């Protein structure tokens, strides 16, 4: 479903990704690990179409379609969703207002009931143990780190993407919050055949999500591929031995 071939990316003239190859099938959980600064988050930004990341070689295709010329919103409406590492605040815009607009655009002419959406959002918030008070605030306005991550997952649950990219979802989360989020994601994989690209520096989140594929990235390229055994080894020895 997602195929990345020989992807090379620059930011302000500086090479960040130096020929990344990666493929992900429907319903798969792919874990991309690596030390800080290895290019993992840059890959996520490139896939969603952040214009700062300039693709100068290679191909990203999603469901057989080349993404190169698509804007971030077009990619989103194809079914790609990024749970941001540091979601920005949008003062005065509630999550419901944003989702209502997003759903209306996504569903084109189909009517989206504001009332149904309200119920859905409230139900999802409850499942994620997210305080209902936060639903009335501007998006991410004065949210704690954990609340922001949960709000990213809540939006994902409503928008039902085909591909979820989680960028360092486990940073700054306590064990309970992490378990809640992982459970929610696993459910979407099982019930909706959603694919997941997990980008993480740590191993913690993998105690809750069972990966189909694991890769290690370093210096803008993938240096190792395999299965869960890589995670176990990294947990023991750290990134030094991945070279």
């Amino acid at each position, binding site marked *: 479903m997602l195929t990345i071939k020989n992807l090379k990316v620059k930011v302000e003239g500086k090479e960040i990704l130096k020929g990344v190859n990666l493929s992900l099938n429907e319903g798969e959980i792919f874990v991309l690990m690596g030390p800080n600064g290895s290019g993992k988050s840059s890959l996520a930004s490139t896939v969603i179409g952040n214009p700062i990341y300039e693709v100068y070689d290679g191909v990203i295709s999603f469901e057989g379609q080349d993404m190169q010329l698509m804007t971030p*919103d077009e990619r989103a409406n194809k079914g790609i969703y*990024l749970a941001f590492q540091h979601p*920005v605040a949008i003062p005065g815009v509630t999550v419901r*207002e944003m989702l209502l607009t997003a759903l209306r*655009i996504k569903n084109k002419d189909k009517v989206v009931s*504001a009332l149904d959406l309200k119920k859905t959002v409230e139900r999802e918030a409850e499942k994620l143990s997210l305080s209902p008070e936060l639903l009335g605030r501007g998006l991410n306005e004065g949210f704690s780190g954990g609340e922001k991550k949960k709000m990213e997952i809540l939006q994902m649950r409503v928008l039902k993407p085909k591909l979820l990219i989680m960028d360092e979802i486990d940073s700054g989360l306590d064990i309970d919050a992490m378990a809640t989020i992982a459970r929610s994601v696993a459910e979407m994989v099982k019930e909706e055949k959603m694919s997941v690209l997990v980008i993480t520096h740590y191993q913690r989140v993998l105690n809750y999500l069972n990966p189909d594929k694991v890769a290690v990235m370093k210096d803008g390229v993938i240096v190792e591929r395999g299965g869960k055994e890589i995670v176990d080894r990294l947990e023991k020895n750290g990134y030094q031995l991945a070279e």
Partner: protein
Amino acid sequence: MRYAKKDLKPEAKLGDFDESYTLNKVDDIEYSYKGKRGLDEKVIRDISAMKGEPDWMLEKRLAAYKIYLSKPSPSWGGDISSIHFEDIYYYLKPAVTEQKSWDDVPFSVKETFEKIGVPQAEREMLAGVKGQYDSEVVYGSLKKVLSEKGVLFLSMDEALKFYPEIVKKYFGTIVPAGDNKLAALNTAVWSGGSFVYVPAGVDVGLPLQAYFRINSESAGQFERTLIIAEEGAKVHYIEGCSAPSFSSASLHAAVVEVIVKKKARVAYTTVQNWYKNIYNLVTKRAWVEEKGEMRWVDGNLGSALTMKYPSCVLAGEGAKGEMLSIAWAGKDQHQDTGAKMIHLAPNTTSQIISKSISKNGGRATYRGMVQINKGAVGARSKVVCDALILDDLSRSDTYPLNKIFEEDVILEHEAVVSRVSEEQLLYLMSRGLPEHEAEAMVVNGFLEPVMKEVPMEYAVEMNRLVNLEMEGSVG
């Protein structure tokens, strides 16, 4: 609507608004009196005679005219040098006279009113509608229930005819002719505007509503509004403005005086959407007595230049003044707006929340003043002025002035200038919103703290206008 900006209640639809109507067509109206261009004593005497006014009003007009001639134009604020005062018609009287029923209103006038939503507002149980078509009121209605309570809601011309003693007692007491050059001009040539009188203890409940509209090229509109809320009375007055396009600049110089007596509460909401060549220079002031409350809500979207600084004189102990405003400055527009809060008595409180947006070279200026006089112990004031600049061509300035003559007071001031960040746009786009909708959403979110205080119908209208401006500037 391309998409819903706000999670509206289902009944708050824009139902009857015809999107194709651009409000820039000049309606075909006949005038029975068009006077001549420019101003002299004879024009003023003509206006007064035609209206059959008492002598004291003519004298006020003539005295104000002398003040007008003697005062210099304001040298600060916006540039008014392109207003040619000598080319303006100071009084226009439509050939139709005041109508008693909606059915009697001429079709072209009616069509305009329908397009700007007056009858809809009526259906929505708003208390009364007064529409000002150039210089005379051509349509007015007042719900029976209000007159039974003793509430007066008339045009100023009618008020002067039927209640001269009340008008004489208050006219020009809050905004005297000598206040500034344009207040003097208004006093000299005023015509139309609203008069609201709410007797002691009466809560009007439903908002009183008026629409104003300039319809003739180079027609000055000098309406005069006077609102009196007696002890413990409550009233909400709403005015909305829209104007068709003209080839040369038109001037709107209104004066609004509000008297809020002990424990009374008055709210005054304005949606200003003048066409882009109108000069909108307005003096609005409220006098607030003990424990009285005054709230100005002001949305300024149209006009070439608006200079407007609604004020509250907090004269009685515990009086409260509030100003909520939004300003949109697009291409070739300058919104020079703000508020003045003058604390004369102990434990008075005031709050100013001002939000401005500038885009496509527009210029938004906040100009405000908080004055706390000696003796106003325990006074508190809070000023928040936020500006959002949408591109590099546009500009925002903030000129806050605080004059504090008492020590035991609390004054807070926050001013933030921000831009829609790339990060915010990317975030919303990554959720599926195209760029211009993402930008509109950030803008609407920025305005939300003011919008939520505005009556639903007006919030919808202001949102719609902002979104139209956003769309217009994308293409």
